[in-house]
């Protein structure tokens, strides 16, 4: 199992994502200006402020050469996980429905929140314990998810903020969504910052373990 973490100029949580992925498998950095995916089994588009995000979060990163390869990889059914800025990039790239808008508070918010897993079948959540909320931190200014009703099936919502935990005013408490095919997943909470009780929580590890389990099954199949 080999993860690839896309590194843009301005990525901040790239090393964190790499370290988290390395807890369940191999992981390598993928430089934004390259095109070679180095044979990875899953791609992580990490958090941060790609290219400074001065225009609109994720708006420039979608044009990176590496994103062409990622889009092709996703089209072939490859697993792509976008975290925070990565979620914004995937929405901008059209790989996920909807958009991330500025938080209702118009402020950056860094907070540990509880999220509920809505599906036990997704490649991204299959290892999550059923019925137990995950404690995972959020940290963003532009995390209020919005999608028109007809643009998003309920089955595409994989994560919701637990009641009273919505930190940004997201539509229907949505914290994470997947594409129709189910192989591209974006979320605002940072599972890579919840992989060790020493630094707060290990609940996010289940996301990475889900990906590993899915890839392992596929290899066997």
């Amino acid at each position, binding site marked *: 199992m080999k993860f690839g973490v896309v590194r843009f*100029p*301005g*990525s*901040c*949580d790239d*090393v*964190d994502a790499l*370290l*988290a992925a390395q807890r369940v498998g191999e992981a390598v950095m993928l430089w934004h200006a390259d095109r070679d995916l180095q044979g990875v089994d899953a791609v992580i588009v990490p*958090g*941060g*402020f790609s*290219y*400074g*995000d*001065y225009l609109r979060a994720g708006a420039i990163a979608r044009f990176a050469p590496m994103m062409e390869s990622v889009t092709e990889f996703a089209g072939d059914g490859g697993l792509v996980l976008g975290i925070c800025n990565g979620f914004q990039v995937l929405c901008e790239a059209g790989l996920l429905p909807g958009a991330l808008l500025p*938080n*209702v*508070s*118009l*402020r*950056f*918010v*860094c*907070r540990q929140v509880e999220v509920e897993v809505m599906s036990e079948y997704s490649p991204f959540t299959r290892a999550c314990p059923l019925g137990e909320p995950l404690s995972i*931190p959020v*940290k963003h*200014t532009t995390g209020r998810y919005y999608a028109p009703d007809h643009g998003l099936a309920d089955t595409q919502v994989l994560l919701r903020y637990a009641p*009273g*935990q*919505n*930190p940004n*005013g997201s539509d229907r408490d949505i914290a994470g969504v997947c594409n129709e095919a189910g192989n591209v997943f974006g979320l605002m909470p*940072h599972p*890579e*910052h919840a992989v*060790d009780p*020493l*630094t*707060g929580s290990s609940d996010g590890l289940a996301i990475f373990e889900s990906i590993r389990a899915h890839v392992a099954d596929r290899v066997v199949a």
Partner: protein
Amino acid sequence: MTGRTITRGGSPPGRTSDGSRAGNFRELGLTDIEYELILAVLGRHPNEVELAMFSLMWSEHCSYKHSRRLLRRLPTEGPHVLLGPGENAGAVDVGDGLAVAFKVESHNHPSAVEPFQGAATGVGGILRDVFAVGARPIAILDSLRFGEPAESERSRYLLERAVAGIGHYGNSIGVPTVGGEIYFEQAYEQNCLVNAMCLGLAPHNRLIRSAAVGPGNVLVLLGALTGRDGIGGASVLASAEFGFDGVDGVADKRPSVQIGDPFAEKKLLECCLDLLDRDLLASLQDLGAAGLTSASAEMASKGGLGLDLDVARVPLREPGMEPFEVMVSESQERMLCVVTPDLVSEVVAVCDHWEVLCTQIGSVTDTGRLRVLDGNEVVGDLPVAALVDECPLYELDPEPPDAPIYPPPAAVLRGGEEPATLLLALLASPNIASRRAVFEQYDCIVGSRTVRRPDEADAAVLQLPGGAGLAISIDGNGRRVACDPRAGAAEAVYECSANLACVGAEPLGLTNCLNFGNPEKPHVAWQLEEAVEGLARACEALGVPVVGGNVSLYNEAPAGPILPTPVIGMVGRLPDASRAGRIGFAHDGDAIALVGPFAPSLNGSELAKLRGVAPVGGLPVMEPRAVRDAHAAVRDAVRAGALTSAHDIAEGGLAVALAECCVAGGIGARLKVRIAGGVQELFGEAPGCAFVVSGPEQAVAALGRIIGRVGGHALVIPGTLEVAVSELRAARDGGLLQYASSAVWSE
């Protein structure tokens, strides 16, 4: 440093022999005497470029001309020190071949003028100081002071925008803001304080100095384009009082404030560390106040060499900039380095990869002169020593004030209140209330090292590779320093060390930022001198060296000086990060003990402030050995994993400390002893000396007197007060939130 000494008032005002230049040098902030000295050193009049360079290098901000002699009093040596004062940041050994570099620096004047960019570039500047020595920044802390939020719309505006600016820069560049402190006092109304501290981590062999080496080597400028922003920031902005036009007048100074670009700095940071990992640089220096002038002069001075620098090669943001503008521009996100000629092409390739601009702008010489060229024309030629070493050092003329300097604050409490009412008022006071509304605007976890976040413990804790931990605390209560500069400054050192003890960390070193008023005024000079003496003695008593720092003077407006505010940032190490202490009571039935010398006084306390008492009166005198022993005892118990919680008794005294432990843990406590001393024992203060700890009875009894037990839903002090934890929490949560933002949106 061998600067001359001038005794203020000892010489008559100098007469300049050239009337036409007089206005010019005065506008640039030089005095008549200083201009005469320049003439004597050069043997001629300086030209426009040279005069601009002198005005910056001889400014208070760059030369420390009013504080340098005093700073020699501070102990700077210790077994862990790798880099001491004088480098871009100090550094201490943290074991396993790793070093931690750190420094605190002020950005007060720019933040008073434009709080968002002022605070943002304060963070950007301190980050550069840390990666300039080869360390990867891993944590930011900040220390903020504003006027009274309840009374001043301007203070609420400064708070909101400064916090937003710090978050903007730190969050965007991916360095966590893990701690800080904020105080609100009337004396900061005109001069807010924004001090930012950064810590970085480096293998020993990546640490690099700024001294220029090797005549013939190439001087390379890295990073952003040079523009007209920040011209004169160090001299006309940071080294003078704000005038009688006060708050409104600051708008005129906005062009002197720089604009930050965290994305540019993120690339610059990764690029510099990559260059150092490849061993491609001979020396490295950041460009901060006074831009190219200061960076080049400091590099040449430290190396005992000269530099030739061609302003025509400096990439500009706008056309038509004069040579002097290029030399003094404070455009952000730039670094200067020395490269051997054979490695230049490799340096260029690394910079290309990171999309960082890289330009050869000059060379190292053996002349001892800083020559500024504009193409083939020499537009400035100065002995480096004249710029760096010949600045006159001023003797202070200290005199204790014979009347109180600071007026009493408005009374919030009228007297006669019950202890429970006092406790709730203290918890809701902006100086004590929860900082959540502020720290939630900062990313405190990026980097995957943060073991203790804000509000979880008395100090921030980061994990090191291999399982050890780093602890960091920043503190400085100006009101107490105003009461007694010597004792108050010592308290700040004790308080930081106590905070570290609560997480189990032993201090390795500290950095300080001395924020004071106009040192030319005798009572401010006295505050400064006394505070430095207090710092020095406390450092000696605890065995903690000062590895670097910053001085910010002239924080003064027509209404008077700020409270004397030495801010201490202390760094320590604990062997096992997983045993880092926590603040909150947790286990029903745990015993609570009072540890350390406990002799609280209401002088300078938060309660005295709420009662409308001016900051006057002596502070409790602490026996340093007793303080040191108490810190060691708590530290050892935390390290042994013997305690459930540890918290030092600071603002608001014992009752507030107990309430904070209850709120953090969501559980009550019942004291079994009566509080004999009444209000003074409940709410009196003596920061940095005594602790409240909880844990199994045997463990805490070994440390101090058992005063009660954890349990229930209220804080109960028999015969004195009983308040539900939920009520304590509500008071504490609302105190700052109402001012930090009228629009904070939460569940």
